[in-house]
């Protein structure tokens, strides 16, 4: 790896951008393409990237990396309809499956060739794996799991994320290096409206990669069986439990209500840490971000960790004995009562109101 230029001393921190970064321009979004499918977080990022690009008066570009005829052109067309002006398209047989090494080399080469000022990636397993390697190679700043992106008066990217284990927020800048990199978790940003028929320019870029030089091989891929997977992120109704439920058994009350409503169930981070529920049920900064029409938080105090994962809900109901719990800062309605006693009554009330006569059913 090439040695990086020396970092700035503290004294130069606030000075202008170094000369070599002055021609870095435009906002890029990594379009995550795997086995012909674009991860929806890429479109959410295009929506956010569009706003940043308009504010800066620059172009919004999508980066599509994949195998030959593996959906790259379709992904580019999608990217245009979600707001991209340009798509940098790299197709090569060795890029058919995601692997860190060839993807890092490709994205790094694209950045060094076309010089974007901002590069956004989804905080998925793919995006995090790639972003960390690319940022280190480029020796630039990378801010993980941003919940808000904005452009400052001096045109730098202000990336806000939770800090201190999710109790506070902080705004982070990459002042003296380019590109300014950030990742955003799925569902944190709203899905932009699709503009049918919107078109853009494709820039095909050829990379010089040979399979023989790559050490890591993908031997096989086993898709998840969808039946057992939670659909929390996309559910219209979500019911979640926290430590206020006092035991793993009482999470059943949450599952029962979610089942009656045809929704999904989840829990707060401490519940997962106590082993009450599997990690894929965790809602919050380090778990799933949800955007349901109705979110019911039962016995959840609502640390920022949790809060940033549920703020996108249309309507939030908190069931919590503690009237000063932070969840009440974001909930629209609250019932100050013991969730263990109240959940069964609420389940019955919903069942009657929504005229559901079918037998009990467990969600997920």
């Amino acid at each position: 790896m090439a040695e990086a230029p020396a970092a700035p001393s503290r004294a130069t921190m606030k000075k202008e951008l170094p000369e070599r970064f002055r021609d870095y321009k435009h906002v890029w979004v990594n379009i995550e393409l795997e086995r012909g499918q674009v991860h929806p977080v890429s479109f959410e990022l295009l929506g956010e990237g569009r706003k940043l690009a308009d504010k800066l008066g620059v172009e919004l570009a999508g980066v599509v990396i994949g195998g030959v005829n593996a959906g790259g052109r379709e992904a580019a067309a999608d990217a245009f309809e979600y707001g991209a002006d340009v798509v940098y398209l790299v197709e090569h047989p060795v890029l058919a499956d995601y692997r860190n090494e060839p993807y890092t080399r490709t994205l790094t080469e694209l950045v060094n060739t076309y010089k974007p000022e901002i590069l956004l990636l989804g905080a998925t397993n793919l995006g995090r794996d790639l972003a960390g390697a690319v940022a280190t190679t480029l020796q630039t700043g990378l801010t993980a799991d941003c919940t808000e992106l904005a452009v400052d008066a001096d045109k730098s990217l202000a990336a806000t994320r939770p800090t201190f284990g999710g109790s506070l927020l902080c705004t982070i800048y990459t002042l003296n290096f380019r590109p300014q990199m950030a990742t955003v978790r799925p569902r944190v940003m709203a899905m932009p409206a699709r503009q049918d028929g919107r078109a853009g320019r494709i820039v095909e870029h050829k990379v010089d990669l040979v399979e023989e030089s790559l050490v890591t091989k993908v031997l096989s891929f086993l898709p998840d069986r969808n039946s057992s997977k939670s659909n929390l992120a996309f559910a219209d109704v979500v019911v979640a439990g926290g430590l206020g439920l006092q035991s793993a058994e009482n999470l059943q009350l949450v599952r029962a209500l979610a089942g009656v409503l045809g929704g999904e169930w989840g829990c707060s981070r401490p519940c997962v840490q106590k082993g009450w529920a599997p990690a894929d049920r965790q809602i919050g900064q380090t778990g799933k971000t949800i955007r349901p029409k109705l979110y019911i938080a039962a016995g959840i105090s609502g640390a920022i960790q949790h809060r940033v994962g549920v703020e996108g809900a249309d309507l939030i109901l908190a069931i919590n004995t503690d009237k000063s719990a932070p969840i009440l800062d974001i909930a629209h309605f609250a019932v100050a009562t013991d969730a263990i006693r109240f959940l069964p009554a609420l389940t019955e009330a919903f069942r009657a109101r929504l005229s559901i006569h079918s037998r009990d059913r467990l969600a997920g």
Partner: protein
Amino acid sequence: MHFVVCIKQVPDSAQIRVHPVTNTIMRQGVPTIINPYDLFALETALRLRDAHRGEVTVLTMGPPSAEDSLRKALTYGANRGVLLTDRFFAGSDTLATSFALSQAIRKIGEIWGPPDIVFAGKQTIDGDTAQVGPGIARRLELHQLTYISKIGHVDKDSGVIELERRAEGGTQSLGSRMPCLITMLEGTAEIRRGSLNDALRAARAEIVTWNAKDAGIEDMLKCGLRGSPTVVKRVFAPTPRAEKAKQIELQPKARATAEALLDTLFVAKPSLEGDMRTLAAGL
């Protein structure tokens, strides 16, 4: 074989309290623990060592008190602990942290033999970035293998290693080569109960403590605040919404409260009732 496991001492988030008025974190008296995600990496390394022979070196960067986390790792059976501590590291972001750790790993390699595998947890529970592992891999030019759910065949002579990796929507089976950097997924290998022997050894063990110079770091400009391209400009508590949640009046019977609640919800958001009816009807 030689395994280096990078760990971080973090505040036990289950015991963190947020000040009710200032909404700031109350750090005083919060016990520290080894980042829980790192324990899966440590246990995986210990099992590989037990199966293939060799040594496990545990490395951490932090204040002098981070020694506790290394001693804890020794009670599980790690062979040695290395603490990287220097005021020059203060304010390091992930890029500066991965620089310092990678230099220390080089030094560890010089003294106790180059590592076959460098392990890290998936991410920490306090920073949650998942960036330091990949950063170390790039700097040491190790094959980067993140979100590993299972390590299969390991051939120490040929250096071949087979693993399973959690990808989006499924599991990748990978073939790769050592030396490599692996970040382990949670739930993969529960940490063992250490033996009495290890506990006794850990209590007496000398923790190797290095400052930047000891670790062979010459370029201090790459360390700490000065080596960090990211700058934290503002730390703040989120602004609460203008109004707090509207409390639903409690009735003597829970069911009556629930009915009143539904009335309120459906009045506040008229489209919700129809949406929920449709959803429930789909069951």
